[in-house]
């Protein structure tokens, strides 16, 4: 499954880079992302609850980073598994300064979706994943433009270092049904890959 697209983020490329590097932002803006955790120098684990109203389903995702060239591009390899299916994907992300203080983010994901959803979801997967991406980037843009506050760690939660937990309200209910449960994880894991990459980039600086 190939999913590609772009988004205009209303901030300069360095600011976008920094925002994308802030796990507190990521854990809040990745649809359904509950938890982001460093598991090694190049590897991260995240927990995504496919935030579809009325549909349970938690997915463990793992992310590996390569071909980083801050602040302009990453190649991320990510994988995730949940009851309705599995996902493994490569996502290339480019950040480009478009001059007027805005940044164009382009992503190019090639995902392999397995399990039940692969056999019955083909009609729907790409569209849902695109929709996911849009959801995510508009959240990021809200943060960048100050329309939404950067999430504090959820009250009462004291995670260990390197672990970031979304406030309970963060995972916005994501309408729809069905294939979304499987497709969400595909897109979410893919995007998670991109973002955790940014995180790593910052810690090296």
């Amino acid at each position: 499954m190939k999913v590609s697209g772009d988004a205009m983020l209303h901030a300069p490329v360095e600011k976008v880079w920094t925002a994308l590097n802030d796990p507190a932002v990521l854990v809040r803006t990745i649809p359904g992302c509950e938890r982001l955790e460093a598991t090694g120098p190049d590897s991260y684990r995240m927990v995504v609850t496919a935030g579809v109203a009325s549909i349970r389903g938690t997915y463990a995702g793992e992310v590996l980073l390569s071909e980083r060239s801050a602040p302009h591009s990453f190649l991320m390899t990510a994988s995730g598994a949940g009851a309705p299916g599995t996902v493994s994907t490569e996502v290339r992300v480019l950040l480009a300064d478009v001059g007027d203080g805005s940044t164009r983010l382009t992503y190019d994901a090639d995902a392999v979706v397995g399990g039940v959803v692969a056999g019955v979801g083909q009609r729907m997967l790409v569209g849902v994943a695109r929709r996911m991406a849009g959801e995510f980037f508009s959240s990021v843009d809200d943060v960048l433009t100050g329309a939404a506050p950067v999430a504090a760690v959820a009250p009462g939660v004291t995670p260990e270092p390197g672990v970031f937990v979304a406030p309970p309200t963060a995972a916005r209910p994501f309408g729809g049904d069905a294939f979304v449960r499987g497709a969400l994880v595909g897109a979410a894991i893919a995007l998670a890959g991109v973002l955790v990459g940014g995180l790593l980039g910052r810690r090296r600086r």
Partner: protein
Amino acid sequence: MTRMFGEPVTRVEDDRLLRGHGAYLDDLGHDALACAFVRSPHAHADVLDVDVTGALDVDGLVAIYTYEDLPGRLAEPLPLLIPHPALTHGRTQYALARGVVNHVGEPVVMVVARDRYLAEDAAERIIVTYRPLPAVVGIPAARAAEHLVHPDVPGNVAANLVQAVGDVESALAGAAHLLELDLSIERSASTPMEGRGVLARWDPESHRLRMWTSTQTSTGVRAAVAAKLGLALVDVDVITPDVGGGFGVKIMHPWPEELLAPWAAMLLGRPVKFVEDRREHFISSAHERAQQHHVRVGFDNDGHVLGLDVRFWHDHGAYIPYGLIVPIITSTQLLGPYKPGAYRVEFDSLYTNTLMVTPYRGAGRPQGVFVMERTMDAIAAFLGLDRALVRERNFIRPDEMPYDHGLMFQDGRPLIYDSGDYPASLEKLKKLVGWDEFEHVRDAARADGRRVGIGLACYVEGTGVGPYEGGHVVVETTGKVKVATGLTTQGQGHQTVFAQIVADELGVPMADVEVVTGDTRRFGYAVGTFASRAAVMSGSAIALAARAARAKALKVAAEALEVDAGDLEIVDGIVRVVGSPGAAISLGTVAVLSNPLRYAFDDAAKAATQFAVGDVSKPPVAEDDEPGVEGRGFFSPMQSTFASGMHAVVVETDPDTAEIKILRYCVVHDCGRLINPRIVEGQIHGGVAQGVGGALYERMVYDEAGQLQNASFMDFLMPYVSEVPERVEIDHLETPSPLNPLGIKGAGEAGVIPGAAAIASAIQDAEGFAITAMPISPSDLFELRRRHERAARANGGSHERSTAE
């Protein structure tokens, strides 16, 4: 008494099935535990870990098994059923994956629970950790062998087989014309409406295993289960209940579940049932058809084929338990009714990380016929000759029968056609469809902006392959006749046609004959129902058995009536002296008399007392005799018998939407003598529908990662009534087979075989460009049109002419 053979009698099976009183696999064993399986979501991966902890607290869970739990021979790879010298790298799966999975859907963990809902709850909670490996998907990737399916199989090649007659290279070199074609067919599958299923009951007191399975070979399953579970054959009963269609996929055996369910039943001491769901059938049973072919054909100015060289590649999926049957059939049966001159065929059978391939109705013939018939069309187009004429010129003539192709057939025996009259069939077909007048139809349609085309395809089908089948006929003291044969039935009406045969042979009313198939308790020696063999093999065996029973009945009756057996006839179940109807005795009474111990406890026994039977100078049962009026017969022919047929189809393609509609579908069919025309025509109707499905709708769509993307009836487009021809126009030719006592040939697969070839021929005729790959969808046709329009523009606007014109 009217002869039943040849009569379109209604089926004895129907009343029960129409009332909803059929007994299919899942209609049995309401008390049984249910199985569900954790199946691989990856096409190729190492299995690193199986964590079942999450499943353990599922209410109703009974057991969870992985490969490590499998004992003895159950832990070995499943059998390679049909070895072949050319099959140098045969690989088969394990009942449960051992460390690695090679296709999506391969079973990894077995769950047994109180019902299927709970079994699926538990399966969903089992976490299997995989390390994905590169997947080999499709013939090009398999040939490139950049990655291997099985690390110890170089080039992904399981087998390479060459057969040749004459010197094809010099024949091609000497031919006036040479054409090369690349032709391919995609995957489809049997997809019976009922999936696979098995129910097993272990009786520890009698130490017997009884199982029911939705199979095309109960004797094969029985032998496999006995061997794998270490049981004596006599301690295993395998019963085939009503089967909701097979079409080939259920001849494959033993399926992992056919071993695991009885094994679990023995371990747990409770009946265990597995009922395959639709998704499992798509990803865990078997597919067929995918082949790519390169053809070189040399011919003269009249279109006579002088040399034919076919190289093809067969995608047999991740495993090859059924051997090389499918590609061998393609390589031999593609010759159809033609004399190819010198012929050379070579194929590679290739591993891919997709579901394994086993025969699906037609079994390699649709591919072979597609190759040969597309080649005939190409020759006609090249020479500007009529497509039917070119075929006619290459036919084997009736006076050349029996015709020896000099090749080896799927049964390892010489490929010798026993009989057939191909020119007569073609004449019938041309008349039926109006072949010679069609040009006007096509032109008239084009005049008002419509695109119609006609196509035809011919095939010869080896049917009734050996090695043997048997039959048993016993006359009970009630006069009722009980018949058993070992092979199974999946809707072909065997209970009816076999009863027709016995009624005639024995001289009893059909209503008094009851036939049982596929029950090893009733008949233990059998091969199975495939390759259009049931009527030929079991029909003949049952006829022989009935004749033996008749002889015995006449012998006993002759003694009782003190007449010569030669003066007796059996009419409506009464043995009587020809010409003097007074002297008569019912078959039931004869049955009593045939047994010195006359415990019949019925009127027949009373009636018997008036007759004195037996020579006091001999023991009650003579050395050369046995009690009862019974007959056993086995039929084991030297070779297959070759049915044939020809299809013509008229299609219309929408100039705007590229939708393809079948306007007419005509069939001329020769399966020797017809036992029951109604049933034969039903087989043709169903076969044609599957042929249409395979040509225009059905394909298994894998992505490059080996994920089957249409694993449901939503996206695997099995035709509804709205997609099949409204009327299949049928004409029969009957050239009896000299190879069996009834003069019959098989008819089960025929209808599906030439579908893709005939429809491709018709689409090409309508569109004016070559159709080289099937199936074809409107989207495919649209893209082909654009490619040919671009090519036409490139050729300075000169419009590409139909290769069929």
